[in-house]
Structures are given as C-alpha cells and as structure tokens.
C-alpha cells in the first residue's frame, strides 16, 4: 500500500494517512463480543489514552491494531497499511502488559536480538540508556525486577524508532515512583513527535499524560475528546425523577442525556445538560419528584463506564 504515498517526497504532514484508523471494527471470542463496532482515527503526533475499566475491550482493540488478532468484521489500518506491514517496517511497536521476555537472555542480549530483526534500528546501548537500564545490561532477564523488565519492554519498543508507540496498561504493578519516572520517560519521548496510544484504567493517568481521551465501555466508544471535554462529560449531573412506565427510547433521545438507569418507578438520567433533561421531563412526561445532583469526578467516571449503567434499566424497562 506504499503506492498510496506520493513519490515526489514533498508531501506535507497533512497528506499522511492517519497513524491508526479503525472502521466498524468488531471482535468476538465465541459468543462474547469484546469490541462492538469501533470507529476511530488517530493522527500522527497525537498522544491518546484508551480509557476504560477492565473488560471494556481495550486490549482486544489494541490486539487488532497490532495485527495480533483479526477483527471479526471491520477494517484496520496503520499508516494506511495493514498492521503486519507497518510492524515489518518498524513503524509501530508496543509495550505489552506482561510476559514477552526470555528469562535466560540478558537485558542487552534481548535488545540485540530484537534490534537485529529490523531493517533499521537504533544503537542498542543508546536505547538501553534512554530506558534507564544501561547499568543492568548484563543482567539475566529472570533476575530483573518487574519495573526493570517493563523498562526493557519499553527499550525493545524504541529500538526500531517507531512512529507509533502503543502501550497496554504499561504501569500495572509499578509503585508510585516507578510509575512517575516511567511516564516521564514516555512523555520526554513523545515530545520528539512520536505518536502514542496507551490503554489505562486510571483516569488520572489519562488526564495527566494524554492530549485526547477515548473512553471505552462494553466494547464501544462512549466518549472521545480532550481530557477537559471527557471530564466535563463524566462530571455531568444526575437527574432523578419518579416516572411510571417510562418511554426509555424517548428519554435517551433527550439532547444532553448521556446515560440512563431505570429502577422500578425511579428514573436516573446522567446528563451533561441537566437543565434540558429537567425541562423535558417536566413538560413532556408525567415525571415528578425531580432531583438534580452533581457527582464527584471519580464517581461520574465509574458511572459512565461501569456495568450497572444500562444493565438495570434494560431489565426493568418495558419490552420493545
């Protein structure tokens, strides 16, 4: 697919294909649908957080982007190529959560092994230094701490000098200090212009290190925007009312309503525009006992991404 690229070598950055493009991607494992139709586009130079609780489909989505698994349906491209092509050219690399290391090789041998597989690679010593593990280059991987192994994975990902770096929950199991210095290294690296996509279930990590947050829940994108935008969305208000046999479809369609829950005769609507929801409830339905509350940021995030959100509502609601 390189023929998509102009030959004259004068193309501006704007002509570049997106670093990542997913179109209607679904991924099922047997009867379980982990990814339920994701469309997203990440441009070159962006630092994007894929935020969501465990089981939201983050790892499944990343596996599809990296070509580690095939989408059940939909299209994936990385710099306009199939993932495997982009990986072969060293355009994209990844730091996975766990595993992926051989205990019987040393740190330097692991890096040399990896570097030798690429057409172009950075000098091993220099990359080990950047990842902060030059001092333990001759240590067996099996004798390295979890944090040191994670830095080695980071070094391995940097060896091909990739345009796109993908990190799947990279700080899992690290202590606060390790986490901070790891992110400092990533941040420093991204300042050179590398595109970064990282998965996390920590809101504060996404907030602190990403320019853009894509919020996943049950395999779907529920929010996509700057950290401030997503926070505003998550931090909206809840409108609570008593309403018998609520028309759920109509309530969902209210502009400004983001999520809904029905518990018997009680309706809870999470709204970015609570005024619009209240106005609708009072004028167009028989709702009474209205109550509008503001939630804490963390609560809001949990509400927006947790399982309880639409589960209750669908069960108690009238059959369609």
């Amino acid at each position, binding site marked *: 697919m390189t023929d998509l690229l102009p030959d004259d*070598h004068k193309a501006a*950055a704007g002509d570049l294909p997106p670093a990542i493009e997913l179109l209607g991607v679904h991924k099922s494992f047997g009867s379980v649908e982990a990814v339920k139709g994701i469309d997203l586009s990440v441009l070159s130079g962006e630092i994007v957080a894929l935020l969501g609780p465990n089981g939201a489909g983050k790892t499944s989505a990343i596996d599809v982007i990296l070509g*580690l698994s095939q989408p059940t349906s939909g299209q994936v491209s990385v710099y306009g190529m199939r993932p495997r092509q982009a990986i072969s050219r060293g355009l994209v690399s990844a730091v996975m959560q766990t*595993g992926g290391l051989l205990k019987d090789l040393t740190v330097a041998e692991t890096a040399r092994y*990896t570097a030798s597989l690429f057409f172009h690679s950075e000098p091993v010593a220099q990359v080990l230094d950047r990842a902060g593990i030059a001092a333990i280059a001759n240590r067996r991987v099996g004798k390295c701490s979890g944090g040191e192994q994670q830095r080695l994975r980071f070094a391995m990902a940097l060896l091909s000098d990739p345009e796109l770096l993908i990190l799947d929950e990279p700080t899992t199991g690290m202590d606060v200090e390790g986490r901070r210095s790891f992110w400092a290294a990533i941040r420093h690296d991204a300042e050179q212009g590398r595109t970064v996509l990282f998965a996390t279930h920590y809101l504060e990590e996404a907030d602190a290190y990403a320019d853009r947050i894509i919020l996943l829940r049950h395999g779907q994108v529920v929010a996509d925007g700057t950290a401030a935008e997503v926070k505003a969305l998550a931090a909206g208000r809840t409108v609570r009312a008593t309403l018998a046999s609520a028309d759920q479809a109509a309530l969902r369609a209210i502009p400004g309503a983001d999520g809904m829950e029905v518990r018997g005769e009680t309706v809870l609507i999470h709204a970015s525009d609570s005024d619009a929801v209240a106005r609708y409830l009072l004028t167009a339905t028989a709702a009474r006992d209205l109550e509008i509350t503001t939630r804490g940021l963390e609560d809001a995030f949990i509400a927006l991404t947790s399982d309880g959100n639409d589960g209750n509502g669908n069960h108690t609601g009238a059959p369609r």
Partner: protein
Amino acid sequence: MSTRSLHAAGLATRRAPGPGGLNTTVLGLEVRRLLRNRRTVIFAVISPVAFFLLFGLNKAYATEPAGHGNVSAFIMISMALYGAVLATTSGGAMVSIERAAGWSRQLRLTPLSPAAYISIKMVTALVLGLASVVAVFAVAMLTGKASMPGYLWIVTGLCVWIGSLVFAAFGLFMGYLLPTENVMQFLGFGLMLFAFGGGLFIPLSQYPHALQTVAEFTPLYGLNQLVHAPLLGGSVHLMWVANAVAWLAIFASGATWRFRKDTVRV
C-alpha cells in the same frame, strides 16, 4: 537530539528486513541460549557419550566385526542417533517454553515472519544435534575401540545428523501441542521408548516376534536402520525409508497444523 518530523517521504523510506527477519545475530543468540541450558546439554550431549562408554566398550563384543567396521562403531552410531534426536527434539520443543513466556507473541511485534521463526528453531536444533554427534564420535575415536573406514565416519555422521531433522519436527509439534515448561520431561521419556522401539539400545532380534512387528512401526526404527546401512553394507529396504518419511510427514504436518492454530489465536 533532533525533533522528528514525520512526512510521507519518511514513511516511504521505512523498509521490511530481508528473509523475514532471519539473521546471524539471532541464530548466535539462540545457540548460546540452548548451550546455557545445562539440563539440555547434559541430556543431549553428555548422556549419549556416557551410554557409549557404558555399552560400546564391552570387551565381550566391542571388537567383533560388524559390516565394514566393528560392534563398537555400530553402538557409537546408535548413541549418536539417540543424542542427536534428543538434541533436535529439545531444540524444537523450545517453542513450548517461548509460548508460555509470551515470547512468540512478542516476536509478532517484530518483522520476524513465522516461517523465519520456525527456521531459526530448526537450525538451532540442528546445531545442538551436530554437537551431540560430534561429541559421541570424538569420544569413540579417543577410546580407540570403534573402528570403521575413514569415509564412513563422515558419511555416517552426516546421515545421523540430517536424519535427526525428523525429530526437530517432532519437537516443534510437541512444543506447540503441550503448553508446558516441562515438556522435555515427557519427551525424554517418549524418546527413550522410541529408542527401545527402534532398536537403538537392544537389537530388535532379541525381542519376542510380536513386539518386533510393532517396533518396526515406531518412529526411530527406519532412521536407525538407515544410519547403520553404510556400515553394514547391505541393501536399503524400502520399508525403512517409508518408516522415516511417514513419520517426518506426520510430525511436520502436525507441527504445521498446531502452528497455524497458534498464529490465529495468540
């Protein structure tokens, strides 16, 4: 440090490596890993040498004639074959450990192609197999007991070495089939049975008739007959070739089948 500026030209200069990422650095590191594993080395190199010293020097029969050489040389070839198949099986079965460690998955984030990965495993297995054959032959030569014409040392050694490739396929198959770090403990036992079945330790003529018939269908039978053929000088039976080729086909297709499943899933 220069600030990167990605542009289409930058994308176009990115290249995939040569033959699927295959290179000598990786081969060197893989061989080093294999030799670092003390258990594998004892298993595949030391044990066949010890068996030769134990069985191949017995004054009662060692210097008796056998084809163009003597019985000691015959036993040397059997033990070299035993060592070589242990070595190549161990080499192939390393995929089991690498899958368990997530290393095969990690490699899929590099340009290394699956075919190149399998080639690396095969070549590494063959290097250890060669070490095994050379060790047994060298010790046998030093004892001065094993005797056969000079060219037969070369021809027989090569036959054993190349023949052991069948078991690199066996090791790969089992490595993909058995998701355990202790895969070699099972395989070591299995190979011991195959060695008895193939007549590597005890001549098949000493087995009861029914057992002999069964033994002729086991995976080391054909290979064992074939590698002794240059020494014994008789004709090569089609049955031996059929046995070796059939088992190679079984192991190779088994490995391919599991490997395909594996690349879809992992």
